[in-house]
């Protein structure tokens, strides 16, 4: 069975792609409208890539695959992504 983790565990791969701390960004679910920090999502991580799901309704928000020198982000489950200017990685 796939192990359920928190979105926090996806911080590394998201940090490869984005120049800010994405686990602190807020994301709104297309499925139920709930807004959560990415760090609070449910994360499933395995050899094929990373899947982030809504903790409220289990809808898939983001899929990330890294292959052949490219990152593929399927974000069809995310309605809005809010990134604060304060959410830079350096303190």
């Amino acid at each position, binding site marked *: 069975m796939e192990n359920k983790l928190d979105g926090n*565990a996806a*911080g*590394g791969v998201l940090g490869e792609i984005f120049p800010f701390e994405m686990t602190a960004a807020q994301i709104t679910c297309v499925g139920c409208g709930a807004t959560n920090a990415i760090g609070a999502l449910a994360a499933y991580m395995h*050899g094929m*890539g990373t899947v982030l799901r809504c903790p409220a309704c289990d809808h898939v928000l983001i899929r990330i695959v*890294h292959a052949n020198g490219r990152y593929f982000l399927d974000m069809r489950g995310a309605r809005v992504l809010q990134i604060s200017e304060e959410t830079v990685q350096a*303190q």
Partner: protein
Amino acid sequence: MERRALPGRLGERLVWQLGDVLATREETPRAKSITLAVPNWRGHRAGQHVDIRLTAEDGYQAERSYSIASPPVEAPHITLTVERLDDGEVSPYLVDELRVGDKLELRGPIGGYFVWEANSGGPLLLVAGGSGIVPLMAMIRQRAAVGSNAPTRLLYSSRTFEEIIYREELEQLVTNSGSTGLEVKHTLTRAQPVGWTGYHRRIDGEMLREVAWPLEERPLSFICGPTPFVETAAASLVGLGYEPARIKTERFGPTGESGASGASGASAVPGGHDGE
């Protein structure tokens, strides 16, 4: 190279870098702390983790996440505490093979959600299962280092007395905290020494009700441990009326390598990530 971002500006993407192993310390028969000097470390917050990457001679790579145990005030040194999983790919190397003077590839700090800072306030309820203590210890150490008086309670579940990580340091911190309020409650789930006065069962709603702060104090909770442990603890706190938004969780896997490690979770993929 400019490494420090200014507020309001974009930061930098995570890059792999090498840390030098300065010291190791046996915490329990299965857990070891590893102190690293990391050049250009940009500083971290209590609760954050790093990814560690090992590369075999044939190029095969394995990547795992490990929580930072040391408080931010010790930067640019960081300490990880790793628990060995016998069938793991990474933790046996880190616990048994790594030596002072070796170099270790890492990136971080990672995580902007499961973090505590002195101005986050309290009262704090920290709930740890096994090596889930590691990121919470960074919070407890930082709290002591900066002289925060946020009232703090730790409920810490271990299998046996010998497997309690940081046991003596926690006792000392409780003593030193005096009236500023750090309380530690242990539960031992598998075996208890003669005369044990702490809890002796898995964490449950009744135990949390006894340890938890009154709701009207609007406690802030951090829970870290294996996935089923975290789910039980979080659901129990919600059942007690705790605000879900003030309960932060960090799960790690019971089967995955990163699980055993005080880790903040499985990093994606052994071999599947080429990194840079």
